[in-house]
């Protein structure tokens, strides 16, 4: 594609939609390194960035990519890097520096199976890394988890706005399935990158006092003061930016909590009404940080059980348990190493839970 028409529907992979949405959101500086299953982002940027007067560099390493993002963010531009799990691990030091320097940027993780080199199949095993910090120090990135190609595009627009609003890195947490599958997508979100004034940016100190972008506070007490300021910002984000989708949770017997690809699979079970005698609800977190703890806590008081479904050995389920805080039993079903839960497996798990619900006093 050479341009986008906001009235037109495009058939694109999640990766391509992600890249195109970034361009539509005003991102003009992209730095990436090849790694499957996110290569289409790199190739789309290589074609499209020159057409819009932007920069796309295929870098020598993930470290170079995240640190070029650091430079372009410090210079006041909208900037992005993308990778998949092993590459995102390499970027973690840089993400900590970005958070510590309060620099806005977007980082895309199209997750694949791990640990180590793992495989190139879909996975959600980077949840801990994404939402608990990932790098060193007390910091958070805002983490957005799309579950369709259209939502990937829409959340990329929002990611750039959130990054600029809070001067904070934002991560799009997808997976190999979301990145590789094709769906129709429209690019019609309005975006005004220039509405964010970046008086702190490095532009050359002409007609103003000089600016310094740093995360080093060697004087005793200064770093604690800075951390307090960061925590205040994170509290504000928690109070304003939680997003989730709730389906049939009102009078449900059991509510499934799942995000991304897993949420799509669970939604199919609900929509097709596959277990007519059990009322199933779905809570789909869209922001993984900040986490929709409040709504999960409320649901926990009304249902017989909660089931968390993930493509991991059980990571988000820890946040579900913290939110539920003993109000109802929490069950987990997960696949690892590139395995994808099938509707049949999830239905079997639900049927297993509901008949034993009275006995289930502790979470499994």
């Amino acid at each position, binding site marked *: 594609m050479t341009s986008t028409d906001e009235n037109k529907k495009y058939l694109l992979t999640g990766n391509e939609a992600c890249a195109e949405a970034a361009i539509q959101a005003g991102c003009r500086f992209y730095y990436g390194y090849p790694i499957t299953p996110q290569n289409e982002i790199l190739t789309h940027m290589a074609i499209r960035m020159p057409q819009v007067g932007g920069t796309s560099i295929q870098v020598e390493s993930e470290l*170079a990519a995240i640190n070029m993002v650091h430079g372009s963010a410090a210079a006041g531009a909208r900037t992005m890097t993308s990778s998949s799990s092993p590459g995102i691990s390499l970027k973690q030091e840089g993400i900590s520096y970005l958070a510590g320097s309060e620099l806005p940027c977007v980082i895309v993780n199209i997750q694949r199976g791990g640990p180590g080199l793992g495989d190139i199949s879909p996975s959600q095993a980077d949840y801990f890394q994404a939402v608990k910090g990932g790098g060193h120090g007390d910091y958070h990135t805002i983490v957005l988890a799309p579950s369709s190609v259209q939502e990937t595009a829409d959340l990329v627009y929002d990611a750039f706005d959130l990054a600029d609003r809070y001067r904070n890195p934002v991560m799009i947490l997808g997976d190999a399935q979301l990145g590789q599958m094709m769906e129709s997508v429209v690019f019609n979100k309005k975006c005004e990158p220039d509405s964010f004034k970046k008086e702190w940016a490095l532009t050359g100190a002409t007609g103003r006092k000089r600016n310094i972008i740093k995360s080093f506070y060697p004087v005793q007490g200064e770093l604690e003061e800075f951390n307090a300021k960061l925590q205040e910002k994170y509290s504000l984000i928690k109070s304003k930016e939680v997003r989730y989708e709730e389906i049939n949770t009102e009078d449900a017997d059991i509510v499934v909590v799942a995000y991304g690809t897993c949420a799509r699979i669970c939604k199919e079970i609900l929509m097709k009404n596959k277990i007519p005698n059990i009322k199933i609800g779905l809570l789909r977190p869209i922001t993984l940080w900040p986490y929709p703890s409040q709504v999960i806590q409320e649901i926990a008081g009304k249902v017989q059980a909660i089931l968390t479904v993930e493509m991991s050995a059980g990571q988000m389920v820890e946040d579900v348990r913290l939110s539920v805080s003993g109000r109802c039993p929490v069950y987990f079903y997960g696949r690892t190493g590139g395995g994808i839960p099938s509707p049949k497996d999830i239905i079997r798990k639900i049927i297993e839970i509901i008949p034993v619900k009275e006995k289930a006093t502790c979470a499994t």
Partner: protein
Amino acid sequence: MEAVYKTPDTMIDTPTHYCPGCGHGIIQRLIAEIIDEKNIKGKTIGIAPVGCAVLAYNYLDIDMCEAAHGRPPAVATGIKRVHPDKIVFSYQGDGDLAAIGLSEIIHTANRSENITVIFVNNAVYGMTNGQMAPTTLLNQKTLTTPQGRSEQCDGPPLRICELLSVVGGSRFIARASVTSPKNIINTKQLIEKGFKTQIQEKGFSLIEVLSPCPVYWRMSSVESIKFIDDEMTKTFPLGVFKDWESQN
């Protein structure tokens, strides 16, 4: 009366945190003088490294950015691509540039990013009390080479100017020292040439400066100067290694 020697406008008039006899103060002053003379204070952006020079922004009154250890060339690239009309330089030590950041410096040079790198080589990790650097001389004693650097175990010192001069994208590569007024004047001329290379959009420039670290060399300031002139320059000869002006 006309002042013939004063603090450059770009230099913040404050005591530095550098150790007695350290060369960083001289080199940063030279950068400040050049920025004044070229009248580019309002359009220059600097990158400070991890290491002794991390607080360079306390002394240079310009827009500045810190970078993670070894990554100033990547950060400089990110800034320069956004502001191609600004003068962007990174200021790096030998651990930062020649060890942990070797990949970034080679690829940044090879892409011929239009930036200038000031590479301060004092043959040791100063900030962490004096361990072996990639540029530590053979037989030189450091905290981590108590018997002296051994070629068999640690390899020979890495010569960055020689290495970068064969990288296709580099345009101006030179090595100088700050051991005498003559050498300091020469260093200034070479850094000026680096800035000129960038202003004329010729591409990547790097000026290596041999600089004393008396405290972690366990020497007096006078001995340190002598060590550079008599020993370091044997491994790291001074001179211009690559110059776009003489290459045509």
